[in-house]
């Protein structure tokens, strides 16, 4: 920081001066008292020595030349680097003029020398500070703006211009700036303007702009109001390019969401190990013990039968989970350009016997979005499970109706499958229907695997599955395939 008094001392020129009389080649003939403060050597010691030798080496040729010119017509010097006895670097300003004899000839040179080290340092510091400020503004992408309310005249700092990617020829006016705003941002800006003119309160808004080069950017605008005699006279403030920050924020939010879902799924896997898998294993342990304790051969044979079916059950459970783990691991498999008509028809082919037997009326509508970027195998697995559910949980009193609908909304792709089956009591089961081995229909028709598999596929592909159901009326499963994917850039 530069204190005010430093600047005042510069203006007051209170720095010491040294005065010399010397020959044109610099040899000192007379040194006035006060040299000590400037050159660090006292006056008598300087007499007979060369002034040129007092200067830093690199300055000497320039000084020699300067003295020669001073000899001819008088010459003022800018600051030069002086070498002083205490070996400190010191800047001096020299002013040399010739001393003439009666006939106009030059008899010697008169030089005043002033220590300007402090001034030079302050100048340096100022310019460094200025440069740093400018660079910091550039780095932070912050610019300043100002608008006169009466004349509507607008000033933009260079950085604002850079943020808008506008060249020198661009004249910032209310209209030319508004042309860069998106309609929503224009609305927001107008609102902020009204508010600040009414209340005088500083406003902070984020606006989306299209730059002069057509790039989409986000800016954070600070609006402040300067009052003059009780009415707003000027608006001013800062504009910061926050495009990068917003993108990072969005990326981070997405990452946190993804990690949260992964953590939830991991917790569920933990739950499966402690609950679902332990059951059949405990059965095996007990059965083995009973076999060992059994003396009766027929009884042992029956127990072995149970051991065999328990181990089969355990294996099939592990396979189910294994399939899900594989999807999780291969989550990044490439999308296919799936023809939905084709894919649905293909899945239905596998159910033709069931559909025929139940006289189910199966329809689908993919007109609004005939194709989907998704791994075809996954999509068909999902469809197969959902169709199987819809065909399994039907009511006896009405013809099963199953309808599949696909559509796009913004950058989201949806699939919905609706049936008029038994429905699920969601108040009772809620989200647990997507858990492994949760069956919610008495009669044990469900294996409790399907929905668990589907949800894991959908979620590991960045989507979401939700369910809506009315007991006795029917069920709708809705998949948003791209729920957790950011907007395509």
């Amino acid at each position, binding site marked *: 920081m530069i204190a005010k008094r430093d600047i005042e001392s510069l203006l007051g020129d209170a720095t010491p001066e040294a005065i010399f009389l010397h020959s044109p080649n610099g040899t000192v003939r007379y040194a006035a008292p006060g040299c000590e403060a400037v050159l660090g050597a006292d006056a008598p010691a300087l007499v007979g020595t060369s002034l040129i030798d007092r200067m830093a080496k690199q300055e000497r040729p320039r000084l020699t030349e300067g003295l020669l010119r001073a000899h001819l017509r008088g010459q003022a010097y800018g600051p030069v680097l002086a070498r002083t006895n205490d070996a400190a670097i010191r800047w001096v300003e020299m002013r040399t003029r010739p001393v003439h004899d009666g006939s106009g000839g030059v008899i010697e040179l008169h030089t005043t020398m002033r220590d300007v080290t402090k001034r030079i340092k302050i100048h340096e510091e100022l310019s460094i500070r200025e440069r740093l400020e400018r660079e910091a503004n550039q780095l932070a992408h912050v610019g300043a703006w100002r608008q006169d309310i009466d004349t509507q005249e607008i000033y933009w700092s260079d950085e604002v211009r850079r943020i808008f990617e506008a060249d020198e020829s661009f004249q910032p006016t209310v209209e030319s700036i508004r042309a860069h705003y998106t309609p929503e941002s224009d609305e927001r800006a107008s609102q902020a303007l009204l508010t600040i003119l009414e209340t005088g309160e500083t406003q902070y808004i984020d606006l989306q702009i299209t730059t002069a080069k057509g790039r989409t950017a986000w800016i954070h605008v600070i609006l402040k109001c300067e009052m003059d005699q009780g009415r707003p006279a000027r608006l001013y403030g800062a504009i910061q390019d926050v495009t990068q920050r917003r993108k990072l924020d969005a990326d981070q939010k997405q990452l946190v969401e993804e990690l949260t879902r992964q953590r939830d799924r991991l917790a569920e896997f933990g739950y499966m190990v*402690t*609950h679902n898998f*332990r*059951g*059949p*294993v*405990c*059965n095996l*342990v*007990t*059965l083995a*013990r*009973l076999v060992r*304790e059994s003396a009766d051969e027929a009884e042992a044979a029956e*127990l072995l039968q*149970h051991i065999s*079916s*328990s181990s089969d*059950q355990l294996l099939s459970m592990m396979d189910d989970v294994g399939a899900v783990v594989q999807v999780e691991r291969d989550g990044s498999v490439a999308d296919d350009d799936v023809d939905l008509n084709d894919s649905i028809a293909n899945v239905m082919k596998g159910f033709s016997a069931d559909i025929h037997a139940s006289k189910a009326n199966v329809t689908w509508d993919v007109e609004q979005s005939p194709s989907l970027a998704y791994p075809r195998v996954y999509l068909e697995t999902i469809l197969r499970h959902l169709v199987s559910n819809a065909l399994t949980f039907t009511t006896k009193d009405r013809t099963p109706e199953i309808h599949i609908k696909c559509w796009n909304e913004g950058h989201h792709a949806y699939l919905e499958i609706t049936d008029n089956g038994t429905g699920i009591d969601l108040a009772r089961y809620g989200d647990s229907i997507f858990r492994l081995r*949760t*069956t*919610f*229909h*008495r009669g044990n028709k469900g294996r409790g695997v399907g929905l668990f598999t589907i949800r894991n596929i959908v979620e590991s592909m960045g989507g979401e599955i939700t369910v809506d159901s009315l007991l006795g009326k029917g069920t709708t499963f809705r998949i948003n395939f791209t729920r957790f994917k950011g907007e395509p850039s």
Partner: protein
Amino acid sequence: MTAARTMVALVDDDRTYQFTTEHMLRRLDEQIGFRWFRDGEEAMKFLEMHIMDTSHLPDVIILDINMPYMDGWQFLDAFHAMKARIGKPIDIYMVSSSMDDRDAIRARSFEEVTDYVEKPITTEKLAAMLHRTQN
């Protein structure tokens, strides 16, 4: 030993578990009465139906936690509400394959629960249950 035979009800959706438990109980007591319910709701309906009929009511209920329809916790809540009307004392053992401590703590917080037992259940444990009831 009391003259009346001991009645045990198993509330669990696992068929193999039902088989092994019944097998062990019959080894312990040939006269034992055994009933199997696949979930809490089935068991609750049975209790409601026989609430005054102590000869049908179980002396011991072996209750699983994770079941479809009405799980172990829901069963305990329903049982708590009807307990006062039941004509005889019933020991409830919560048995689960869960390794989660929280399940054990929660189970023991119900005054209706005599104990929490982690699967696999042993013959010794079943014998202890019967012994407590029969004496």
